[in-house]
């Protein structure tokens, strides 16, 4: 099209004095409309791979925490992933609070990771922040790591009693999901 404009005469191309062809408008309009249309089609093609409505509908979990004794933990499931709920002993709370926050890789206090009035109730995802394995330490008799919290056997990440990363490759503390106490003994996660 550009090459024909170079050789053809103004009568045959509808070229105006300043070198713009009338047909350029139609060319640009048609190609733009097709381009915008093509991009609009991409949206549903990409969006269809996002979690479907049934998956989203199953993304909140209620957990009864009444039976957990100090020093014990339970595993629940939240969004198809393990959720650790742990009642800390007074010694563990003290140990977590005694740790200097500034020296941590991901500085957070125990109070920031728990809810007011329930500082001994540590709710975290059971998903190592390194590459997603399930850390040990929630079930009876499992290794708790050098800092008495959780230990991920895949690549050796050690978490302390507040679920904070202390040693190993994991970049951040175990994630604390959004949750609320719906009563003294029940939490709703998500």
């Amino acid at each position, binding site marked *: *099209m550009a090459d*024909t404009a170079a*050789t*053809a*005469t103004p009568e*045959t*191309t509808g070229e105006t004095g300043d070198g713009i062809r009338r047909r350029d408008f139609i060319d640009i309009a*048609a190609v733009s409309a*097709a381009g915008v249309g093509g991009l609009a089609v991409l949206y*549903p*093609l990409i*969006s*269809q*791979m*996002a979690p*479907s*409505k*049934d*998956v989203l509908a199953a993304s909140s979990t209620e957990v009864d925490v009444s039976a957990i004794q100090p020093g014990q933990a339970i595993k629940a499931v939240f969004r198809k992933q393990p959720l650790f709920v742990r009642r800390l002993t007074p010694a563990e709370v003290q140990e977590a609070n005694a740790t200097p926050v500034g020296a941590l890789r991901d500085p957070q206090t125990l109070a920031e990771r728990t809810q007011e009035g329930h500082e001994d109730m540590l709710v975290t995802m059971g998903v190592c922040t390194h590459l997603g394995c399930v850390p040990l330490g929630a079930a009876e008799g499992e290794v708790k790591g050098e800092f008495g919290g959780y230990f991920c056997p895949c690549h050796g990440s050690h978490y302390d009693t507040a679920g904070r990363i202390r040693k190993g490759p994991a970049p951040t503390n175990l994630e604390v999901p959004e949750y609320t106490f719906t009563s003294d003994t029940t939490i709703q996660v998500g």
Partner: protein
Amino acid sequence: MSFPWAKEYTPANGFTKFLDEKLPLPRLVYNAVGAGYPVPRNLSYFWNFGVLAGFFLVLQIVTGIILAMHYAANAQVAFATTEHIMRNVNWGWLMRYAHANGASFFFIVVYLHIFRGFYYSSYKAPREMIWLLGVTIFLLMMATAFMGYVLPWGQMSFWGAKVITGLFGAIPLVGEPIQIWLLGGYAPDNAALNRFFSLHFLLPFVIAGFVILHIWALHIPGSSNPTGVEIKSESDTLPFHPYYTVKDGFGLGVALILFMTMVFFLPNALGHPDNYIEANPLSTPAHIVPEWYFWPFYAILRAFTVDFLFIPAKLLGVIAMFGSILLWFILPWLDRSPVRSGHYRPLFRKFFWFGLIPAMIVLFICGGAPAEEPYVMLSQLATAYYFLHFLVILPIVGQIEKPEPLPYSITEAVLGSDKKAVLGENASPAV
């Protein structure tokens, strides 16, 4: 092949030069659908449907791959996952409706493509191979569409699978074992559903392969045209790009408007409500018919109601149904008229418009109607004409017909005289 005046691809920069040496893909595209492919200047909109068929094949593959991400081919959950796609998956309704209606539109454009081939005798030498490959594509499409319709596992899916595999049961002696082998059981169930899913996924790629051969074969003699007169000189042609990319683009726009209207406003108009009832092996729907695009052939199948000599009616129907399409394979050798275009064939035109087309319409209507009078008798008459047309009328018409005078060239057909067309190099063709 290339006409001597075809424009040659010249790489514009270092990168395309590199590419042209190592893998000349841009050159291939340029010579296939670019300025390097000279095309008759007089193509009508009937020459749009090849590109449209290609578009709908791609659409079916894209939406189909997406549906397969959310669907499970298991008789326990197939129906439920189909509803899951409709209700839970983001835009799943759009994907499924586009796929279901895309199948219909694929057949619409392919039927118009075949119609074009019949009227303008696109199957004649030197284009026989294009035609043979096209008929093969059509058969593959039918198989693919049938198996796809089974996947939602509704009532029509199930009974369609049962009836169509039952066709093979008509084969003498080995029919029943073959039917059981095809289904992997005595009735359609998990085994059948799984293999249909597997093949439904595979066959579109086989079709795509045949489409490549179809286009390759087309580029040897080049496109035919409404006059049926072969290209004689450069003034008979235009480069494919931009002239026919634009013309095809316009046709695609019109097709998409119609298609999206169906998808958004009438998504189930071409389907059957019974297919929203889960498959039930114990109850056949009162009126089972295949999808609309199979109706003419279904009518031929049902037209045979009486045994002939030692051949049972069931077998006759099956032979006739498959034969009605297989006979297209010998069409280039049945129609021996040297004139291609129906435009210049007065006698052929009469039989075409007043014989073949009405017969096809009658078969179409009867195929969708219940198996009762007057539809049975009408489909018998139409079936008789259908075979008569191809096997008797076409060969005879080719012998006795006196064709109307053909233009000397495409240019003469377009401009009235070929002398006018022998213009200077800068003449702008048909702006």
